[in-house]
């Protein structure tokens, strides 16, 4: 899993304990089974479609997820991510297509027949009439495991989530964070091959959520279980996931590592969904053949943007250039080069301590956002409202999007 601490700001604000967790949870570099053609995926969705009446919740998705992955399904509500997860658990049956887990077609198996898959539910779904201990042991009791073994496994699961002393409480006597741990322990107690998490941290406040994310990573690493998490929180997905599938209207927009998703999104949708981004429309004017592309902005004032080319571009094609706010260099003086520069007027300044946001109204009529770190060595004049500024960016930090 490639956590991106600099993006979500956790490394800066985290406690030493969290940083330690981050290190222990960091995977052996080179964990990328999806790049290894000899690896068999643990989960395979084959042309899976799910319709509810006229509504297409999941639209012909084919997706492989590999063992020991922490896979995130990310998207806005109604994008089909939960339906996809529920098809793995067995609560929904695909209208078309097959779901294969560990080489076995499980499309038609009922949830209770999928003994190697367990789910942690949104808002936990703890049994209110049972103690924590009974909740955690519920799955094991269904298997008819002897009581002394159940006790041992329950204790193991509870110590994994650091919840030992609450064994005899009822769920309503626990805080939200404790309930979340019970839910996790209950799902993990059966030692599933595959753990499904439906918005597992949605009910926690922000601080607790950050902590819980690292804990999920620790537990995933310790148990070696494959995790599939559904979330609408892009920071959460970026933090925990080895790969992220960004979903939109039942389709997969992009399936990549968090780093790739952020640095080289394949569509405007993905670029805009993950972090802040400035999108500028333009047309391809030339492809010099050195792996770059020259683009003229849609406003057509003769300026040229240069960027790394992607496949399948042709001269005259409409494209979009995406530049992250932190990639801009904002200055009060015109830069020497005329490439990858826009001129504009500062509309708004947001001072956030370590960084400042600048909303710039460009000559072409776009509104773009630039970020600048407020380092102590910054001797330049402060930039203020209504200043005329130039925004410049290196060619390699702009991404050309075809859609």
């Amino acid at each position: 899993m490639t956590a991106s601490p600099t993006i979500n700001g956790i490394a800066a604000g985290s406690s030493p304990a969290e940083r330690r967790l981050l290190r222990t949870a960091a995977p052996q570099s080179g964990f990328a089974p999806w790049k290894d053609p000899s690896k068999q995926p643990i989960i395979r969705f084959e042309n899976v479609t799910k319709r509810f009446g006229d509504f297409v919740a999941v639209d012909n998705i084919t997706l492989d997820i590999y063992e020991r992955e922490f896979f995130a399904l990310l998207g806005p509500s109604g994008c089909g991510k939960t339906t996809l997860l529920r098809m793995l658990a067995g609560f929904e049956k695909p209208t078309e297509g097959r779901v294969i887990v560990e080489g076995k077609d499980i499309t038609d198996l009922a949830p209770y027949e999928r003994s190697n898959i367990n789910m942690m539910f949104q808002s936990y779904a703890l049994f209110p009439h049972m103690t924590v201990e009974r909740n955690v042991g519920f799955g094991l009791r269904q298997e008819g495991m002897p009581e002394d073994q159940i006790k041992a496994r329950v204790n193991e699961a509870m110590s994994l989530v650091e919840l030992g002393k609450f064994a005899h409480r009822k769920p309503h006597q626990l805080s939200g964070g404790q309930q979340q741990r019970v839910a996790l322990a209950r799902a993990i107690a059966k030692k599933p091959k595959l753990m499904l998490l439906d918005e597992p941290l949605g009910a926690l406040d922000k601080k607790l959520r950050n902590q819980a994310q690292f804990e999920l990573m620790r537990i995933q690493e310790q148990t070696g279980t494959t995790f599939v998490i559904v979330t609408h929180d892009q920071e959460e997905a970026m933090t925990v996931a080895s790969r992220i599938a960004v979903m939109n209207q039942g389709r997969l927009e992009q399936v990549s590592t968090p780093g790739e998703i952020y640095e080289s999104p394949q569509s405007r949708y993905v670029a805009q969904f993950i972090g802040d981004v400035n999108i500028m429309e333009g047309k391809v004017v030339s492809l010099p053949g050195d792996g770059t592309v020259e683009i003229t902005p849609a406003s057509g004032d003769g300026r040229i943007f240069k960027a790394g080319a992607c496949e399948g571009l042709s001269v005259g094609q409409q494209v979009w250039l995406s530049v992250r706010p932190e990639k801009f260099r904002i200055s009060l003086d015109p830069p020497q080069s005329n490439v990858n520069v826009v001129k504009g007027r500062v509309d708004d300044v947001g001072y956030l301590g370590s960084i400042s946001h600048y909303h710039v109204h460009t000559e072409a009529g776009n509104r773009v956002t630039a970020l600048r770190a407020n380092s102590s060595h910054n001797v330049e004049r402060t930039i203020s409202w209504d200043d005329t500024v130039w925004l410049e960016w290196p060619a390699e930090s702009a991404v050309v999007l075809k859609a």
Partner: protein
Amino acid sequence: MRKWMVIAAPYVWLLLFFLIPFFIVFKISLSESEISIPPYTPVFSLSEGWESIRTKLGELDFEKYAFIFSDELYTSSYWSSLKIAAVATFLTLLIAYPLAYGMARAPKEWQPTLMMFVILPFWTSFLIRVYAWIGILKNEGLLNAFLLHIGAISEPLQIMNTTTAVYIGIVYSYLPFMVLPLYASLEKIDGRLLEAAEDLGSPPWKAFWQVTFPLSIPGIVAGCFLVFIPATGEFVIPDLLGGSETLMIGKTLWSEFFNNRDWPVASAVAVLLLLVLIVPIVAFQWAQQRAREAGR
């Protein structure tokens, strides 16, 4: 001042319509019967002065209670009432549970309609509905005619004037009181709990006994009390459907008042009935309180 009025209102209500009538009945139960109007002595009269009231108070005794306990008719009436009420409550539960479960599982937009069907019988008088059962159950009634017609029986079943008819009447009349609390507790159960049970390896029928049933116990308890308490003192149903064969305390009470015109004994029977019912009523209150605390 306003606050006191709000607090006092229910107590004044209780005093006027429960405690004072109760003490009147209680006082009669301590009197002697006599052929007069009213049919008991002594009758207090303020015009005769305090002295006479004091001597008359001295004439009161608990003799009638001793009589009730010595005569088997009364004890077996109480006993049989409790038994009939308990069996009828259980039968009502058996019928109401699937009904309430079906209602709670029905599509949301259907539930208000189904609820209305359950409440619909209340739109007609209770008495008329019980009379209607006579038409169904009697020997030449609808049920027997139907069974004879399809050839299931060769001669009419004697259902009227048996305890069976009383069971049918109680189950029918008190069904809504069982269905509504059951529905309320079943409807509250989060469907995800059942999904979680299934996910953890419990097939649906097992999940019902492990999750749905235990979570519906407050509804079962409330429904059983709501049926059992009024059914124990029921008069109309055993009188109209049970005939002479069924012994229920409500009927005994009625005949004591109106056939025997022995008001003191009848009053003592009423006071004892109240005492008998106080036990389940207190238990009910306690269960409700506990359910409320668990629900927090």
